[in-house]
């Protein structure tokens, strides 16, 4: 998990890295809405082009990202296959595979492309914004909202990101240990789920505890110096472009 470059931050000096993170977050929301609403091939292709451009503009390591995409390739293939087989409809026009429907295949491909677009949006955002900046931005947006402890929500969000690899690593470790003890040959589904979730929960809770102690030891407090943001003209231009893209897709 740790060797994955997928949602890592890449320190660079690019237009997107320098962009005001508040507007960057806004752009991310707009583009992900556009990706979810897109329906036609033209829209999908256009958004892919825009996001591909953004990845190049942010000078992210394209080859490394594509290599990591292989992990998702299997998932995407499964997704397309599942839809093709389970959605009822007419058979394929040229080569007829029993069970595969035209509507299902189209739906599966659309689903997969949308997933790719959303992953690309996240790649640009996480690749060009450090986790700390992201946290500060969220805090900035939440501060005027009443009844919401902005600093705590932002911290919890960061903790969520930090805990992802922890949980995956724990799971892999635990699976290996169980394989060695032949637990996976059990047939009883409840026992199997139990043997998976109970140790996973117990181990991750202990790791969460370690994180809490580490934070305590470093005098974590919610009253910190507030981050300062600066907006430049080009940031507004980029935001306007994203807004236009989103509206164009939404109001087609």
């Amino acid at each position, binding site marked *: 998990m740790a060797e994955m470059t997928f949602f890592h931050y890449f320190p660079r000096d690019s237009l997107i890295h320098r962009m005001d993170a508040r507007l960057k977050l806004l752009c991310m929301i707009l583009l992900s809405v556009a990706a979810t*609403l897109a329906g036609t091939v033209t829209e999908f292709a256009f958004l892919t082009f825009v996001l591909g451009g953004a990845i190049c503009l942010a000078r992210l390591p394209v080859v490394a990202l594509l290599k990591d995409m292989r992990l998702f390739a299997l998932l995407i293939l499964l997704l397309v296959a*599942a839809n093709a087989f389970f959605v009822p409809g007419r058979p394929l026009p040229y080569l007829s595979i029993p069970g595969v429907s035209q509507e299902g295949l189209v739906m599966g491909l659309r689903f997969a492309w949308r997933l790719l677009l*959303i992953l690309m949006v996240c790649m640009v955002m996480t690749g060009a914004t450090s986790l700390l900046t992201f946290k500060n931005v969220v805090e900035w947006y939440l501060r005027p909202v009443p009844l919401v402890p902005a600093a705590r929500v932002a*911290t*919890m969000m960061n903790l969520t990101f930090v805990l*992802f690899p922890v949980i995956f690593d724990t799971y892999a470790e635990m699976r290996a240990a169980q394989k060695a003890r032949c637990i996976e040959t059990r047939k009883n589904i409840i026992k199997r789920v139990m043997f998976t979730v109970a140790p996973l929960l117990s181990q991750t*809770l202990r790791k*969460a505890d370690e994180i809490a102690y580490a934070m305590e030891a470093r005098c974590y407090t919610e009253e910190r110096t507030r981050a300062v943001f600066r907006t430049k003209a080009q940031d507004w231009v980029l935001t306007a472009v994203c807004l236009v893209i989103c509206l164009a897709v939404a109001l087609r």
Partner: protein
Amino acid sequence: MSKQSAVAPMNLRMTVYSALFTTLIIIGGVNIPIGPVPIVLADFFVMLAGLFLGPKWGLASVLLWLFLGVLGLPVFAGFKAGLAVLMGPTAGFLPGYVLMVLAVGLLAGIGKPSWARNTLALIVGNILLYPPGILWLKMLLHLNWPTVLAAYLLPFLPGTVIKIVVAVALGQTLLPRFKQAVSEASWQPANDNDEDEQ
């Protein structure tokens, strides 16, 4: 000042735990979507969040999950994200999750903990989860009652029963130690600490 420092660590720990459950809910949502409503483990971890963290922190954990989704991160079932999900076919289940975690947290938290109480809390929670989701689906897809129930309730029931059984069993094995850990020292699993000490 001394009062503050006595309260803060406990809050801090609950903050981390709560974030942990959010992560588990997100990971539980990863699967292959078939049809409009995918089968997920997310609801299982929402149940556990209510059971383990109680109503307040359980709610925080679920709301954080929804918030991350609104920001556009692919955290909902099948990597969906963004405001559009709040309009999509599964949108009705999202307020259902909030109701469920509240109900489970409140009911399991009153009085002396027992497996019967936990079971009851989880059943009530699941009863609250489905109506908003199914009503929304019915309205959005313009289906009649038998179709909606046959397609979106019945296939999930066996899974839900298994999830409740496992959640109750986990409540029996892990919950007492968890409660103790939260109230005093750190999390000490019964006998998997050996390798650390040697």
